[in-house]
């Protein structure tokens, strides 16, 4: 096994996903199969190879620092599940 249910439960916490026991078992099997498959990359010697983060050569993209109109608070909040005045509302963070 490349990965255990304990590992999967830990990663689920990082990804902010709550998994049912059935989901945990199913996902462990499927992730294990996938990790077994991607192991084939280790057949390749990549010492000294520069990693590709971006396929097209590109330098930093700069633009003039000009003030333009923004969408405004009402539009920004239009899709919020909960809002109050000009704010997004979330469950209490600090008790």
């Amino acid at each position: 096994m490349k990965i255990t249910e304990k590992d999967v439960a830990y990663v689920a916490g990082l990804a902010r996903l709550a998994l049912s026991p059935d989901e945990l078992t199913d996902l462990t099997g499927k992730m294990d199969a996938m990790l077994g498959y991607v192991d084939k990359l280790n057949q390749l010697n990549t010492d000294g190879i520069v990693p590709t983060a971006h396929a097209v050569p590109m330098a930093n993209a700069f633009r003039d620092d000009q003030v333009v109109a923004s969408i405004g608070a009402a539009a920004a909040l239009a899709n919020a599940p909960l809002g109050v005045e000009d704010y997004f509302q979330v469950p209490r963070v600090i008790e």
Partner: protein
Amino acid sequence: MSVPQLTISDLAKQLQEQKTTAMAVTRQSIERINSTDGQLNAFVTRCDDAAFKEAAAADVQLRAGSAGPLTGIPLGLKDIFSTKGVRTTCGSKILDNYVPVYDATVVERLRKQGAVIIGKLNMDEFAMGSSNETSSAGVCRNPWDRNHVPGGSSGGSAVAVAAGQVAAALGTDTGGSIRQPAAHCGVVGLKPTYGRVSRYGVIAYASSLDQVGPITRNVEDCALLLAAIAGYDPRDSTSVDRPVPDYQASLNEGVAGKKIGLPREYFIDGLDPEVKRAVDAAMEVYRGLGAELVPVSLPHTDYSVACYYLIATAEASSNLARYDGVRFGVRHAGAGGLIDMYQQTRSAGFGDEVKRRIMLGTYALSSGYYDAYYLKAQKVRTLIRQDFTRVFAQVDLLLTPVAPTAAFKIGEKTDDPLQMYLSDIFTIPANLAGTCAMSIPCGFDAAGLPIGLQLIGKPFGEGEMLQAARAFEQATDWHTRQPSL
């Protein structure tokens, strides 16, 4: 006259000669959707009322003689493009109620050119899938055989074009999501070079791979629609500031004297014999047109799927962190505090395939595994890119199958994600290399399902690739076949 027979160029001609009106064309498109979409499920959201308003505005332009080639043309959009005031779900329950407050740049461009937006098209959830089976709007069916998948993730876009519901559509392609459904539905689909088309307002899956492109009935329309959306956009820092060539002007220059490479790694044992026969026949067509076919090698092809599923899932795990029930989308509040709300929202809102990819990507990026998985995959990506650079020093284009088989049956691969992933083996490398590639119809299997031919061009070589596609299309009639609905 009916929409199914008509391409963008035919329609534009009829509209400009005032033989029909944008209102009439829009009505036909909507009637066609009414009569066929119950069987196909290509549309997630319809925009009938807005479409008629846009058509009326287009008719004013047409009467004034100020119309362009897209004025009054009915188009569909994959439900991944932000559309101001029109629900945009990305095929996910988590965005079930999401109504963007702005248009994506490509949508803005189409609107400015007078196109009529008919509606939003079905897709795999967050563009993660090769069969359109992971959509929250339900499966979408292949018009050639409704027991088969249309391909994915831009399944609805390919179906709507193949079924004559719209004249053309836009899709997105991260690992083949335009080309594979285009092949499975018998239409033309093009993934531009990374950076050629703005992604501003396009819901992100894997940002170093995603690209927007057209799905059309023929190559001429493909050139036209690509020209309409291509070009630099200061709002997308990955878009490339480079002039857009006149694709249509050079379209009929033919392939005589061109060198077309046949990468041996794409003609493997798993290739369906009927697909192989159709692609072999296409090679003969190109020989007959004066192209020189050259055997070449892309030695790292076999590592593409593994490389892709680490890079794409890693990027997805980061991109999809934004769906947290705070700023948009559906919230599921738990009994606990903020973290519980995040977990309940994401667990209820994402489907199984999206969860699998977020999990694999989070794992590949997590402390202790980053070097072994993500960094390793990025290094292998360099080797795959170098394969293409080397081969494009020898040849002008590459010719390959789009997929190892024609469209598979609905449900056939849903329990085995790895088998599903492997069906993308021939389309993924172009995304990893960042270059352009397209699918054109090149035949049918014995069951009557379409087969697609892939052309892969040099980076920013869309013009040359379209010429070769056009030459093939003029020598064959596969693109004129239509499913009976």
